[in-house]
């Protein structure tokens, strides 16, 4: 394809075939936001059901489906894709690269996620969603009637493949594509933490892949790994799930930590305190993340030695996390703190997350965990870390990077309303849940009986959830009313890192000339110690770009077709589906595609216009 042809494409076709990391990033954000609203809706429905004792807003079975889909959607289809959105858009810009290492695979990863998510949600319309919790413990899941869990298994398998591809892509991008001078220890912390999160993806997701494969073979083809009568063992699933599942929660939180590191440093106008300690702590968290999964299984009967070891290992994570918390506080110390909405979310994160973190350490106390486990205390813990950590990080990143991504700034007044309502709603919803748990309310209950002292707190909790909904709608309003806010969008916050050196909208090649990095916080360094412009590391030349392609969509679609074939055991359909996927793979591998070049003249033209 030539440069001219690449310029003149139909918009929809362009987005379907794009391999541009920025467009893919935006698509991840859009997809993730959609599923976040969906998962939020499911949460609200659950909260309404729990508003009064013995309420019959939804049936017990529906409730189980709601809670399963809420957890699954939020973790796999909302939080991760939203983070992937930022990682996709921002990492190449932060390291001074023109694209990711594997643009094709990047697109494939996105479409796998999207189709996997859609497949999972199709289950609502064809006889019932999965109903065994997001953890899908066997044998409840392996024997669950209907097709709900088949959708769970295959939807997650497809989406999970996309995530794994994405993880590898980020790893190689960060290792191989950094601009000259950008050593590992000059990388912005968002890139660093995304790097570690990608490592976790690489080693955690295969365990899930196998878990899902086994569950699929058990459900669809009568395998007997989990069937006790055939010599099977049900604990194996739990281990496989949590060997994935615990690292997964750090996959979520680490990139969010990265966002906070950028935002807090930017709005305190200070260099991140203890940069190398931060990097080191991130690595330690990643490492320890693999040693603690069995803290979800204290009550399952592994024995006291195992429980004790996993309890102590889990507690150890508080140390590197604490290092990070105090480094952030010291970053603020002596700074000039600006209370923008992005920073409000980062500042709101600190106390909220610490509250969630310390209840995590309480949960890690194995002997006490026998009381906490599978109660609302756990629900409170993980919403504190996930919402107070991950979701706040996402909102912070949204307000921070929105100008760069979309060319306009979000309205600060509305943004602040949104923040306060969300913060209050969030604490209202989940703070009381600690007590609900300790007072005897198990989690995953479709309702509760009156007269057990659980009524008023459940009611309060639901009110909080309503408040969060109002806040969320305010965010949507904010996004739509802000579109005119187009002044100074290239570097609105006096940014420190390379993404702010690009013009907005960012040209498809990101950097006309690859920048030369001379310090941590490269842009800040040039602004306050140099002439305010990045030095170029190369002369102005033609820029090589990859071609767009529809194959990722085709490959993902093929897998969805195959999944339907598997779910309903229509073997010809399965074969057709795989044939489509492997056919597209075949085409991809025999048709060499060397991309095209953007001529220097066009780059110069862009420069003058921008």
């Amino acid at each position: 394809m030539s440069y001219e042809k690449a310029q003149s494409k139909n918009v929809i076709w362009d987005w379907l075939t794009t391999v541009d990391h920025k467009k893919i990033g935006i698509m991840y954000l859009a997809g993730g936001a959609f599923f976040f609203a969906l998962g939020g809706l499911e949460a609200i429905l659950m909260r309404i059901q729990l508003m009064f004792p013995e309420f019959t807003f939804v049936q017990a079975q529906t409730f189980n489906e709601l809670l399963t889909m809420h957890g699954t959607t939020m973790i796999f289809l909302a939080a991760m894709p939203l983070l992937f959105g930022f990682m996709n858009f921002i990492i190449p810009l932060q390291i001074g690269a023109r694209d990711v290492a594997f643009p094709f695979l990047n697109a494939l990863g996105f479409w796998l996620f999207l189709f996997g998510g859609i497949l999972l949600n199709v289950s609502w319309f064809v006889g019932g969603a999965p109903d065994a919790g997001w953890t899908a413990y066997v044998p409840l899941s392996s024997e669950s009637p209907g097709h709900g869990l088949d959708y769970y298994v295959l939807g997650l398998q497809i989406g999970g493949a996309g995530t794994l591809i994405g993880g590898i892509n980020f790893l190689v991008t960060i290792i191989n594509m950094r601009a000259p001078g950008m050593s590992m220890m000059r990388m912005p912390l968002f890139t660093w933490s995304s790097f570690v999160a990608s490592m976790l993806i690489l080693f955690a997701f295969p365990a899930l892949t196998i878990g899902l494969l086994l569950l699929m073979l058990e459900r669809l083809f009568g395998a007997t790994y989990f069937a006790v009568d055939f010599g099977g063992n049900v604990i194996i699933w739990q281990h496989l799930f949590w060997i994935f599942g615990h690292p997964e929660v750090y996959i979520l939180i680490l990139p969010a930590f990265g966002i906070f590191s950028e935002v807090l440093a930017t709005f305190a106008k200070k260099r991140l305190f203890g940069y190398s300690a931060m990097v080191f702590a991130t690595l330690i968290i990643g490492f320890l993340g693999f040693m603690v999964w069995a803290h979800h299984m204290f009550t399952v009967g592994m024995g006291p030695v195992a429980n004790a070891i996993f309890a102590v290992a889990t507690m150890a994570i508080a140390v590197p996390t604490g290092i990070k918390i105090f480094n952030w506080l010291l970053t603020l110390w002596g700074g000039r703190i600006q209370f923008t909405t992005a920073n409000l979310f980062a500042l709101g994160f600190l106390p909220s997350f610490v509250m969630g973190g310390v209840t995590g350490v309480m949960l890690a106390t194995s002997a006490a965990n026998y009381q906490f486990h599978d109660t609302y205390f756990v629900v409170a813990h993980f919403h504190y870390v996930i919402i107070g950590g991950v979701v706040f990080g996402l909102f912070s990143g949204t307000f921070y990077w929105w100008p760069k991504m979309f060319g306009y700034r979000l309205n600060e007044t509305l943004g602040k309303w949104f923040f306060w309502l969300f913060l209050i709603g969030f604490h209202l919803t989940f703070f009381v849940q600690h007590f609900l748990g300790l007072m005897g309310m198990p989690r995953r209950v479709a309702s509760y009986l009156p007269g057990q002292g659980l009524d008023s707190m459940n009611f309060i909790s639901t009110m909080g959830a309503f408040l969060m909904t109002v806040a969320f709608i305010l965010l949507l309003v904010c996004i739509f009313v802000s579109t005119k806010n187009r002044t100074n969008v290239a570097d609105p916050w006096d940014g420190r890192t390379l993404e702010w050196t690009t013009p907005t909208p960012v040209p498809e090649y990101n950097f006309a000339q690859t920048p030369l990095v001379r310090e941590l916080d490269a842009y800040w360094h040039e602004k306050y110690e140099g002439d305010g412009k990045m030095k170029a590391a190369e002369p102005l030349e033609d820029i090589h770009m990859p071609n767009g392609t529809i194959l990722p969509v085709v490959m993902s679609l093929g897998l969805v077709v195959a999944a339907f074939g598997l779910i309903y055991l229509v073997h010809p359909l399965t074969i057709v589906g795989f044939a489509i996927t492997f056919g597209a793979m075949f085409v991809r591998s025999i048709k060499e595609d060397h991309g095209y070049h953007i001529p220097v003249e066009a780059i110069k033209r862009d420069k003058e216009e921008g």
Partner: protein
Amino acid sequence: MADHQAVEQHTLPPNPEKATLEGRNKYLGFWFFLGGETVLFGSLFGTYLGLRDGVVDGPGPSDLFHLDLVFIMTMILLTSSLTSVFAVINMKRGNYKGLLMWMWATVLLGVAFLGFEIYEFYEYYHLGLGFTTSAFASSFYTLVGTHGAHVAFGVSWITVLLIRYRKSGLTLTNAPKFYTAVLYWHFIDVVWVFIFTVVYLLGIGG
């Protein structure tokens, strides 16, 4: 395809698979993928080891496994690893014919291995070990079958490469492709080392 003239003619670099950025990306990315595959197979091995006593009324390892068959299969796969090493050495020499020839040898050995494996499964099935017979059966077929699927995929992948590039000569594009395919092939052999040790040898001897 290319809307520009190729001006530079390329001379053979010492590591053609890593001479371009694309090549280096592919090389690294593929290795990382293998790192993930390690955990994938680790999970399968763990499942198998956890369930291997769950034979219920079906046949167990010592009723089924023959060392001679496994030994032959092992030798075949080991040799195919060597042929693919020779293929890479020839690639670095610029001897494209040699590369193709050794890769074909690898494919043939891979096919032979698969043949034995199919025969083996067929035999076990007739000895009463169905996929759903027992937890041992399910986990055994899943572990060894996943490895077999890798072999099958490797064979098809290399074959496609060999046919697609039968006449092109060594280029900066296909060198990394051959190289990663060879890495994949070695990895299959690495997994097999554990399979023959943990599944077959321990199944009979432990």
